[in-house]
């Protein structure tokens, strides 16, 4: 299996897209460490990986908290080895029309979805540079490109992630490190289940594929970007959205 002997860190791996990514990388032979915000979440990640007879486990890490990231990375380095694959998947939404958006809604989304990517990437780059091999894969969103009413904070953070990724790609390319984004459209997860019927109906009208995506369909693209075969793909955003937006 292609990722045998490599350690992967996947943030927000308890459910949805993150869980599918953890499984897909484990399936390729990687030792996967998934992060959760609670001890129960971390245990469920460990159990899930164990059930598929894979190496890896869950840890508690709050990506919005620099101290927590530092402690988490220390634990990963000690127990699983230095991660050479980083998937920044953890994210939150705090939707509201801009005129009603609170400062806290803005800053918490920017911290959790954008600043966290800066911090985790910085924390693992040294190890990747030493290994002369690395994969940073950031989960963006279709709305980073197309915009979405009620999500100015989320769209700003995700568009920020894409710009960050392109800079990182240019800085680290000559060390065998690639940095890419995967931008899911509407995927069947808790995040989209929060939408009401009217929103879902409107959504279906703009998705040529006529259905929501599955988390596994996003994870498959992440697994490709993590692979040896994707070594010449960098600074790219790959859309996985059933045709609703083509950049």
């Amino acid at each position, binding site marked *: 299996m292609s990722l045998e002997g490599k350690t992967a860190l996947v943030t927000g791996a308890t459910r949805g897209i993150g869980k599918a990514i953890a499984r897909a990388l484990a399936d390729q032979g990687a030792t996967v460490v998934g992060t959760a915000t609670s001890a129960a979440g971390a245990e469920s990640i460990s159990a899930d990986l164990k059930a598929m007879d894979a190496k890896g486990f869950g840890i508690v890490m709050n990506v919005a908290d620099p101290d927590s990231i530092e402690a988490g990375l220390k634990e990963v380095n000690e127990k699983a080895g230095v991660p050479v694959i980083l998937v920044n998947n953890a994210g939150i939404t705090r939707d509201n029309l801009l005129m009603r958006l609170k400062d806290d809604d803005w800053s918490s989304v920017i911290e959790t979805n954008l600043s966290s990517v800066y911090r985790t990437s910085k924390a693992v780059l*040294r190890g990747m*540079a030493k290994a002369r091999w690395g994969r940073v894969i950031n989960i963006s969103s279709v709305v980073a490109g197309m915009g979405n009413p009620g999500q100015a904070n989320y769209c700003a953070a995700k568009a920020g992630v894409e710009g960050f990724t392109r800079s990182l790609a240019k*800085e*680290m390319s*000559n*060390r065998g490190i690639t940095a890419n984004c995967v931008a899911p459209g509407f995927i069947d997860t808790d995040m989209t289940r929060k939408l009401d019927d009217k929103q879902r109906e409107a959504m279906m009208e703009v998705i040529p594929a006529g259905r929501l995506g599955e988390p596994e369909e996003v994870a498959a693209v992440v697994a490709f970007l993590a692979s040896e075969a994707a070594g010449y793909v960098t600074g790219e955003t790959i859309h996985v959205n059933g045709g609703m937006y083509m950049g």
Partner: protein
Amino acid sequence: MSTVEERVKKIVCEQLGVKESEVQNTSSFVEDLGADSLDTVELVMALEEEFETEIPDEEAEKLASVQDAIDYIVAHT
């Protein structure tokens, strides 16, 4: 225990992938040893790790040669 000079040179060799015979005290990291900007950042980080010290950015910029690094380490550790 190796001297500071030996330890600095060893790190320079490891980080820049050059032979020990190529590394003189007067060697410039960029001009003589072919370091790019990322190499110099990595080199400074490796020195920080080896000598358990923190080198501020404004000081790190001044470390152009092997001797500069040795002098800095001797003065600050």
